[in-house]
């Protein structure tokens, strides 16, 4: 372990944290953010929403269960983060599901990582100073800081182009043995009673997580996934029963073309958005978004459903948020973050759409909000 080359995580504000190089030996720049999930490092690494970010795991022991192809959240199975920062990479892989060790996979996939970092100190620093650009690598601290400073700010950055598919495709994969009932009253969805395909849904892919698509399949959707720049007319030409707006990376306000497309689709078909999809929908409805100091990233975020009064423990990964005050009369806030009171969901009945800022599909995270998929199904039924 001591043979590992020394490396640093250097922030644009000049602060540097020592560690050792791990994964691919490369220098990498991105926005330093932290996530507080104790499980699910593999899902984080492959979630397209983390594109362009150096992710700091607050959980110290990372890599324990290796990597397996079923848990990749990127449809193509590729890592998405710009870099990975951990306290203590596992010296061994222990899981009957593992196919490869995390270290090998990172190295093979060209992901720069740094281990041995006092990640708590990094988190406390980011909490105080806010998310900022950073660089990891084995070079001198000064050099790394310079590179961090040279990187463009996340604000105003359209990262969707990097992750959206080049062409439409059909998605048919189910959660299979991992399926959990959507209504949360029963435990496991009975695969023997697979739902018949009832609806055709077109998903605008801004960097969609694989488990969202799987959930839609399990709901009973025939799923056509289309690139972000698909026009409203082309979407409607597919004659969908419902439209889905996926999650994705970057500043929503920078994805003007998508906002325009969504504005055209409002009221045409029932529409459901998640994360970036939620922000884009809000922008299409005329609201504004802004950047949080250090975002919400973790699997323990409490959200209150204002309709039922119940609390959901949710999976979140967002740096931007919808300004609830800017929502017009046509839309209302439906979900509230209990920690900071920010809006986590909206609905616009006239426009036949609703969306949430958090991740009901989980992966990683709790399954408390799976009911939202049922809600989407019901909306399509009433159409």
């Amino acid at each position, binding site marked *: 372990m*001591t043979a590992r080359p020394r490396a640093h995580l250097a922030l644009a504000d000049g602060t540097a*944290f*020592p560690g050792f190089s791990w994964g691919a030996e490369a220098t990498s720049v991105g926005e330093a953010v932290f996530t*507080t999930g*104790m*499980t*699910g490092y*593999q*899902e984080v690494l492959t979630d397209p929403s983390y594109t362009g970010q150096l992710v700091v795991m*607050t*959980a*110290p*022991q990372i890599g*324990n*269960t290796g990597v*397996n192809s*079923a*848990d990749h959240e990127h449809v193509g199975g590729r890592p998405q983060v710009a870099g990975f920062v951990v*306290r*203590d990479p*596992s*010296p*061994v892989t*222990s*899981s*009957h*599901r593992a196919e490869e060790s995390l270290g090998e996979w990172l190295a093979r996939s060209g992901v720069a990582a740094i281990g041995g970092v*006092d*990640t*708590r*100190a990094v*988190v*406390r620093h980011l*909490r105080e100073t806010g998310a900022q650009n950073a660089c990891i690598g084995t070079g001198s601290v000064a050099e790394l800081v310079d590179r961090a400073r040279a990187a463009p700010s996340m604000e105003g950055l359209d990262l969707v182009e990097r992750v959206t598919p080049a062409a439409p495709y059909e998605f048919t994969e189910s959660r299979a043995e*991992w399926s*959990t009932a959507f209504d*949360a*009253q*029963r*435990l*496991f969805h009975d695969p023997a009673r697979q739902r018949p395909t009832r609806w055709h849904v077109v998903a605008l892919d801004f960097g969609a997580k694989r488990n969202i698509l799987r959930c839609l399949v399990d709901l009973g959707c025939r799923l056509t996934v289309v690139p972000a720049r698909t026009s409203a007319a082309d979407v409607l030409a597919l004659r969908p029963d419902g439209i889905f707006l996926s999650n994705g990376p970057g500043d929503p306000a920078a994805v003007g073309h998508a906002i325009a497309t969504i504005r055209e689709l409002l009221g045409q078909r029932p529409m459901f958005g998640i994360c970036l999809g939620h922000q884009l929908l809000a922008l299409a409805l005329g609201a504004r978004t802004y950047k949080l100091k250090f975002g919400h990233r*973790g*699997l*323990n*975020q*409490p959200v*209150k459903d204002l309709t039922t*009064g*119940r*609390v959901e*423990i949710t999976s979140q990964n967002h740096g931007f948020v919808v300004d609830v005050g800017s929502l017009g009369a046509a839309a209302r806030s439906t979900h509230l973050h*209990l*920690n*900071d009171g920010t809006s986590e969901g909206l609905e616009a009945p006239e426009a036949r759409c609703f969306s949430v800022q958090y991740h009901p599909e989980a*992966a*990683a*995270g*709790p*399954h*408390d909000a799976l009911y939202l998929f049922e809600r989407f199904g019901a909306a399509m039924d009433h159409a």
Partner: protein
Amino acid sequence: MPRRDDLHKILLIGSGPIVIGQACEFDYSGTQGAKALTTLGYEVVLVNSNPATIMTDPELVRRTYVEPLDRPTLTAILERERPDALLPTLGGQTALNLAIELHESGVLSRLGIKLIGAQVDAIRKAEDRQLFKDAMARAGLESPRSGHAKSVDEARAIAERTGYPVILRPSFTLGGAGGGVAHHPGELTAKVEWALSQSPTGEVLVEESLLGWKEYELEVIRDVKDNFIVVCTIENLDPMGVHTGDSITVAPAMTLTDREYQRLRDAARVVMREIGVETGGSNVQFAVDPRTGRVLVIEMNPRVSRSSALASKATGYPIAKIAAKLAVGFTLDELENDITGTSAAFEPTIDYVVVKWPRFAFEKFPGSEARLGTQMKSVGEVMSIGRTFPEALEKAARSLETGKHGLESLRDRVDYEALAEEPTSTRDLRHDAPPAARPRAPSIPPPSADLRATLERIIARPTPERLFHVADALRAGSSVERVHEVTGIDRWFLEQIARLVRQEARLTAAAELDEELLRESKRLGLGDRRIAALRGMTEDAVRALRDRFGVHATFQRVDTCAAEFPARTPYLYSSHERADECEPSDRRKVIILGGGPNRIGQGIEFDYCCCHAVFALRELGIEAVMVNCNPETVSTDYDTSDRLYFEPLTLEDVLAIVRAEASRGELLGVIVQFGGQTPLRLAVPLERAGVRLLGTSADAIDRAEDRERFDALLSKLGLVRPRAGVARGVDEAREVARSIGYPVLVRPSYVLGGRAMMICYEESELEAYVGIAIEAAREEGGSQVLLIDEFLRNAVEVDVDCVGDGRRAIIGGVMQHIEEAGVHSGDSTSVLPPHSLDAEVVRTIEQQARALALELGVVGLMNVQFAVKDGSVYVLEVNPRASRTVPFVSKATGRPLAKIAAKVMAGETLDSLGLEDGPVPTHVAVKESVFPFGKFPGVDTILGPEMRSTGEVMGIATSAALAFGKSLAAAGFQLPERGRAFISVREADKAAAVQLARRLRNLGFAILATRGTAEAIQRARIPATPINKVLEGSPHVVDAVMDGSIQIVINTTEGAKAIRDSYSIRRNALLHNIPYFTTMPAALAAVDSLEVALLSGTAVQVRSLQEWHARAREAR
């Protein structure tokens, strides 16, 4: 939903005495609950028979009943108090069982009392294994294949279906009592019989074995709106097959992918719904097949538990406090997370690793098998927090205080060859020959293939020290894979241990201990003493080197949120990171060192004292800084002190805290006298390191402990003690004993709880004893000097607790023991005020205690033990520190001694506090001890100089007889109202036995007695039926015990042979739940109680502590 306004008065049931499986974690949860409900404006009534608890402090709630936890008593309290609701989920299994009984007897509905926190149906579904299985099946969850048996035949039929090995779990028992594993049909009969006998319903669950499966626990909370959170996941390092209370456990879970974990979370949620836990904390246990991921639900507890206390300490999320608030109507989103000020409706996430490591006491129970299984055996536990698993593991290992300073090699002190031959036997001081003096090789031979094989054989069986043996196997060259195969321990944990072993090797091999190697070793968790041993240096030298390189511990906060939000609560742990969040205050402050893990001889009483020190300091406006590593305690609640360090109580760890706290504000000093031996052992090294200790000086402590200086002290004051001598080795011991005259009381110096203490009646016993005693002293890290005292036969023992301020001393209480001298004071029954001592003798005792306090310059607490024989007073022992009896005295008299003492230590005087000796109370309080014999098959129940009780209860009444009767009931002995009494006594007790027989006969009992005793009784013209001793052949007394024809057993005996011969009588009385008395004074006291109960026929009388104390005040 906000607070329920239809409730005004709520009764809370505690968990009773500390027993294996139910310890002070319920004091922690009950105290939290009581505080929370009081804060909300409810009137709280509390019932608990255990006086050593913080929850029974009369200041905590309006009315506190220290009364037996049984249905008649509770009924009387409910009738008297008429609460609106009963909250039974904070008092362990005891409280839940009582709630069910009160429900079934109709008391609750008759009095219109609502059960809150858990409903009867939910409790039944969770507790009854068949109902639970059915519920799981309905919810679509799998549980182990199994069946219920009421007989051996039924059990055999089920086992054939599930296949061997099978696990046996008796219904409705605590801590898995009576459980076991039958590996093949040959083992089934005996184990099923034992299990059936332990179950109050005579039922046992026979279940497919999951040996080697992974075990997880989820600590969860649900509210009335079906909001649900997981507070903590816990992974057992020991795979299934070892009771979770005996397993080393780790939080959070380490070897689950998110999908696998979410599957458990979903299942736990469904379990909560299906069982019907409407509000509160619960614990759900799962087994996971490591090969396939198949998940089975093992069990759930619809209440707070030992694990929830651990989860609260591990995450900073106060489960019991939240559960209490949910029980009165709140929902999670209406409550706040104290630490961050954000919502309580979230799941804690942690950025460190927590290890819990249990502590065992097999050495106290000779003849028991030191082997772990499905029945819980541990008596305490430690928790440690580190940034990584290896760091937390090393910290836990050095927190245990079992003479190890981390996960060190035992090769220089364990004969592995011998251990492999007989892996689990514990030596019996009475019967066993002394061990052959083991040649201590100057150097340990290098590891060999043989050693490897031996170790691999040893670690295949779970034992208390298995992880040390596992590390030794890795050191000897066993592969992680091979160790995984034989132990079932997950490779991930093993590889982390291998990492520590590799670091040791690097430390040993390095030419120089440079900064990088030192820093790296510290970051991996190795303690200074470990590094010192590996480098052949002293601990001081390592510390000096660290100072030179600037390698110091940093402190991090437990904040429930992995630093996402700032923590306003200073709940800290150490690590060796870059950043430090200690942020000491600029106030005047005192550090209080806690008692570490519960063990026999050092339990909750000391935590009680530490908490009172905290309360006292806070009242004086001094910042109270608590240090402890026991997750079960009130002292480690972040709410108790101003600042909490969850740290091992070793010199290194304490000095790091002192360094941090002294860096700002004014550190007045450290209190080492309240936490028992644990902090006391640090007194001298701390002082040597320049740390100021508060209260009685270390020199005074030494004067009381060092034999020669103690003798000088006594002769200066003209006080007398039994003749005594000091010996090093067998020859000296023999000589000293001869000069004193047999019988003699022998023990190693500086040990706790009478560890390895024995009365030797003849030379051969002494010779056999010496080797073992020296060994025991070494294991405990004490000196190897033996203390040999004259044993005063039939003397009355007396305990005194007092407080001195250096100028004068006040007497807190004088307690007379019921059992004669020779029974360890911690095991005996104490009566306050003395029930049969001459007033003049009591006055003499008080004067002597005062003289000792003044001469020693005691500032704080002091306990003195006296013996009274033929009117003469002998000083047995002086302990200028908190004693086990302080909470009992405080509850009995209403005077908080520990608090007073702490104030005095902080600079107040008895004058400034306005304190004089209190008047003798107008009531009588009796402290009775509670023993874990039921958990240790094959162990004799006879009392002796080695302490073996785990807990205590108090009976309080207007007379000694009534109070004793209550204390017996509280300890679980229901005295019979009629039937047959069996009497068999040693020669010296014959006369008393005749008295006893006469009185029992007058009460309507028939007398059975062994030949000699029967003849003595018959000579007094009292009818007595002779019955055979076991050796005399059937039908004998044990047959009679077993077939239920004996209702009370009185059996006194002495001498190794007689004790061995009568063992099965006592053991069977225990197994069949028949009240038994092994000393004549206790038997006589029991008959006193019976007479009062049967002749005067008084109904159950209950009164709160507040009323008792008020009554005593008025009587002044």
